[in-house]
């Protein structure tokens, strides 16, 4: 190929430029996203911490949630969407808005107290995952990041095209820091390539859905978007509301019946015409597989099954949506798949980290202190996450603490600087992890696998990073290739 040299150099340049823009932001997204994979387990743990006791298993508080809503008033006849957490003690409720009412959102805990929104640690990590704390533009920035991430992956593959397999098996550990970084970047990058591509595509779809399809919708339907909307909507109610109140008491028995009959677990519950004579309940359940959602529509007053939608009958959009979200959230195959996802996400973080270091290492002379910002943000995040996990035992809302520690630790790099900073961060993170784990193991009794996820996460995060750092530093000691300490 005549283009070969040109192709290699241009794609290397593109990969470098896009990589430098992305590496820190992707690190943050992947690190928080890895923890957010176990969002439900963290939420359940936070509940246990807040309550100081464990909930009796099998309690179903759905009925209480229903009564609570009914007593609040103001929700008659409206559409309500309920998400139930795995341990059935946490509920998320979305109340649809219309011309007279605004859209609303609640988070119910088992105490049936409304929790202030977005203060818990699991929410915080999940929101940082898609850059929600940046006002208005956050999710679009995340979308653009996904787009550039695909771009970066494509150019990265093009760079390695000639020696894809040869370089994959190459790890010159004891030569120079630069070669070690490069070899590990390539090898780990190739290992996580399909995983990263999957996340880039699915994440981009979630963030940029409208931008991706709107021109086609406008052209195909001559500007009439309402024709498309019906394909994206959920199963609608089959009857109109009667404006007569209904005394209803058995929401949880409906759910139990639905779960027993179809051998699924409830995914979400949509209530049409809340509290009305013609109230209808749409339940969606899923098995532990990819794309296995089924739906049933019940009439609440009579208990009749109005319609049932099996997975085969679902529209193509449902299938695509199920596949994308199941792949992204690791909703299939149980906890084991989430463990694998978590490890792969951490390895992806290492890829971004080594990529950033590579760029810094080659331009260190020109750009002084650039690695301080890089190391500061990354180690600040690692320390802040484990610190807020620990502090969650004593503080109910860790948001301020989290950002405070992150910023402080990032600033600290200018005080300490260089290798010493990395070593100290490593030690502090390790110490915090150990204290947290001791606390955790003393407080919990391990009767389900879900209680092992949090220690697993903390240990895995530490092991991956410290192992990587240790190897990189070991190199320096052995070969005396100095990474200038700018003190």
């Amino acid at each position, binding site marked *: 190929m005549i283009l070969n040299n040109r192709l290699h150099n241009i794609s290397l340049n593109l990969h470098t430029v896009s990589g430098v823009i992305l590496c820190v932001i992707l690190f943050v997204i992947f690190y928080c996203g890895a923890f957010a994979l176990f969002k439900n387990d963290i939420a359940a743990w936070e509940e246990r911490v807040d309550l100081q006791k464990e909930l009796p298993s099998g309690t179903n508080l759905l009925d209480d949630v229903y009564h609570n809503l009914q007593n609040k008033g103001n929700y008659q006849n409206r559409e309500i969407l309920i998400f139930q957490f795995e341990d059935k003690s946490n509920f998320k409720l979305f109340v649809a808005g219309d011309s007279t009412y605004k859209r609303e959102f609640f988070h119910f805990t088992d105490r049936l107290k409304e929790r202030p929104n977005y203060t818990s640690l699991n929410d915080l990590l999940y929101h940082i995952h898609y850059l929600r704390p940046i006002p208005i533009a956050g999710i679009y920035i995340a979308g653009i990041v996904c787009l550039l991430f695909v771009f970066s992956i494509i150019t990265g593959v093009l760079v390695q095209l000639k020696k894809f397999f040869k370089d994959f098996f190459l790890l010159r550990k004891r030569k120079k820091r630069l070669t070690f970084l490069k070899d590990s970047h390539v090898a780990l990058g190739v290992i996580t390539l399909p995983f990263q591509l999957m996340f880039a595509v699915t994440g981009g*779809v979630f963030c940029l859905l409208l931008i991706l399809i709107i021109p086609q919708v406008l052209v195909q339907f001559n500007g009439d978007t309402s024709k*498309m909307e019906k394909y994206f909507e959920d199963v609608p109610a089959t009857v109109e509301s009667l404006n007569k109140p209904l005394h209803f008491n058995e929401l949880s028995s409906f759910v139990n019946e639905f779960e027993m009959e179809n051998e699924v677990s409830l995914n979400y519950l949509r209530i049409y015409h809340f509290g009305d004579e013609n109230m209808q309940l749409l339940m969606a359940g899923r098995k532990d597989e990819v794309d296995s959602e089924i739906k049933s529509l019940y009439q609440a007053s009579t208990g009749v099954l109005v319609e049932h939608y099996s997975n085969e009958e679902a529209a193509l959009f449902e299938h*695509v949506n199920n596949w994308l979200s199941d792949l992204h959230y690791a909703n299939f195959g149980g906890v084991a798949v989430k463990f694998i996802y978590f490890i792969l996400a951490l390895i992806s973080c290492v890829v971004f980290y080594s990529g950033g270091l590579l760029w810094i290492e080659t331009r260190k002379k020109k750009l002084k202190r650039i690695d301080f910002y890089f190391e500061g943000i990354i180690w600040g995040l690692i320390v802040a996450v484990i610190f807020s996990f620990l502090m969650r035992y004593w503080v109910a809302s860790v948001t301020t603490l989290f950002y405070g520690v992150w910023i402080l630790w990032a600033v600290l790099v200018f005080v300490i600087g260089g290798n010493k900073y990395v070593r100290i961060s490593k030690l502090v993170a390790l110490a915090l992890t150990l204290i947290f784990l001791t606390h955790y193991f003393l407080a919990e009794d391990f009767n389900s696998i879900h209680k092992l996820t949090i220690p697993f996460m903390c240990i895995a995060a530490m092991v991956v990073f410290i192992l990587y750092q240790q190897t990189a530093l070991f190199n320096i000691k052995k070969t005396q290739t100095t990474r200038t300490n700018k003190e």
Partner: protein
Amino acid sequence: MPANKKYLAESSGQKIVSLFNGFIGGYLLSQSFHLLFGLFFDEVNVIVVSVFTMMLVWPTFMVLAFLIKPRWLCSLIYFGSSFLIMSIAYNL
């Protein structure tokens, strides 16, 4: 190991043109690609599938915009063909 300067765009103007081609032209071209498929298959299905194929096709065109050598040719191909396909798809 930075890339060899010989093969890269010389001025920042050229870089901006390439970026514009890739970002805007690539977007239009990938959209019109899907419109073209919409002529032969069910439109709704094509739109639904396009939510994730767009995420693959658009960045690919972005990369190609930097690789196609004369930049005006790249602009011509991207914008010309997308407007051609769009006008066909819109009028049918």
